[in-house]
């Protein structure tokens, strides 16, 4: 399997050469189409990893490559979603979805001509996450879970090959969270995209990912890597099985050690 996202011996710090290290000697590679999860204690540099992989930050040492190319500018084939849905309150859900297309090339120059086609794409995407018929609503008319779904759609509208999720469900209640796990699971299965999920929820990581990386406390580095070979498609019931819980337990032990 060729690496799609490849970080080699990456060290990074904020605030120039004098700051503290956020990540140190970080090496990981994620295959094309793979679902990877990164877990770790809080403040371990998970978000730095996201910024490095999308080209918002460039490493102080080491190299980052995405899709075989060294990252030297923002990675436009990536879509991102965060814990906060960050939808624009003055735009309807549909208009929020079209925002990335107003920015990223080649869609930007084609938007006026192909608007109808793009609107259709947005409507389909909304329907696929269970938001059919909500496109004319404003974000504040949607519940938290619905806003998160819309935010996911915004991350996917330009059909990225890489989806980066930074604790996307942290602010949701447990039931909504599990619903959205299934939404993500299905999006990954149907679209064949590479997903990197940063989370502190171990059950979430085990349920969704093919491979899980455990990061140490700051400065972050990978201290363990665990393949999850639970058969797909996975249903929520597997979270109660022994094998599932065994993996969660194992990851937990790593994290407990990492915090010491």
């Amino acid at each position, binding site marked *: 399997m060729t690496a799609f996202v490849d970080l080699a011996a990456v060290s990074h710090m904020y605030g120039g050469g004098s700051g503290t290290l956020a990540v140190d000697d970080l090496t990981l590679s994620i295959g094309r189409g793979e679902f990877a999860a990164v877990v770790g204690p809080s403040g371990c540099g998970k978000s730095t990893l996201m910024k490095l992989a999308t080209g918002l930050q460039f490493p102080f040492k080491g190299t980052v490559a995405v899709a075989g190319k060294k990252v030297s500018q923002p990675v436009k084939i990536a879509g991102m979603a965060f814990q906060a849905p960050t939808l624009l*309150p003055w735009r309807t859900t549909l208009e929020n979805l079209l925002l990335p297309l107003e920015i990223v090339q080649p869609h930007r120059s084609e938007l006026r001509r192909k608007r109808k086609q793009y609107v259709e794409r947005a409507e389909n995407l909304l329907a696929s996450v269970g938001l059919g018929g909500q496109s004319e609503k404003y974000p504040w008319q949607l519940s938290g879970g619905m806003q998160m779904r819309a935010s996911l759609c915004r991350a996917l509208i330009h059909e990225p090959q890489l989806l980066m999720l*930074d604790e996307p469900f942290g602010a949701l209640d447990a039931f909504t969270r599990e619903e959205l796990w299934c939404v993500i699971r299905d999006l990954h299965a149907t679209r064949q995209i590479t997903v990197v999920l940063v989370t502190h929820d171990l059950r979430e990581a085990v349920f969704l990912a093919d491979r899980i990386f455990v990061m140490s406390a700051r400065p972050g580095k990978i201290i363990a890597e665990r393949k999850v070979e639970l058969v797909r498609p996975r249903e929520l019931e597997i979270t109660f099985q022994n094998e599932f819980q065994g993996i969660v337990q194992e990851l937990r032990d790593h994290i407990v050690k990492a915090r010491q």
Partner: protein
Amino acid sequence: MNQRLPIMVRLAPWLFTIALLVIWEASVYIFKIPTFFLPPPTAVAKAFYDYWWPIYNNSLFTLSTTLIGFALAVGFGLLLGLVIGWSRTIYAGIYPLMIGFNAIPKVAVVPILVLWFGIGFVPAVLTAFLISFFPIVVNVATGLATIEPELEDVLKALGASKLDIMRKVGIPRSLPYFFGSLKVAITLAFVGSVISESIASNYGIGNLMLQAQAQFQVPLIFAGLVALAIEGIVMYWAMAVLERRMTGWAQRSGFAQG
């Protein structure tokens, strides 16, 4: 938005105003306050009626200096706010200057303006401008400065330029702040023009009140105040309507309205 309000809530502004006037009138009679000290509302109304022509003319003068000064403040404030929000360096450079400038009481600037431009129209316009642009600048810059960093990341990762982020997010985002600041700014603009008129002008409500004071026509002074209050309320209301029209999305909460 108003049609569902209970009748008492809708009548409340009128009832409270009438109550204030009645209490005022009654106090003047009960405590036998002389008219040259505090005229009752009826005397003020009579002065308003007797002198309606000079009041009307001078009100128009004050209104025009205020509005021109305010318009300058809106243009300049918007521009400066955008520039400050755009660049951290410019922000760091200008902000202390702005604070220092804002700290100067504008009354103290009027003599200089008179020195440069003579008395009358121009100093009144400029004082209105100087006093009212600061809140506009600060509010526009605040709107720009409070863009969520996550959203900025999402857009930057798509290759958005700074101009893109400003156009798509920054400017729409700062509009509620901007329109909100107009309500403060228009009120301040009246303060500025009236200050300048009372110091250095032959026209305007400020000047009218000064002359009335010199002639001891106390009800006329109060009539001038009422004229200013009416102008201020009308302009404030106009700004509030504009704000609601332009940025209805930001005022979805029933809290402030209810």
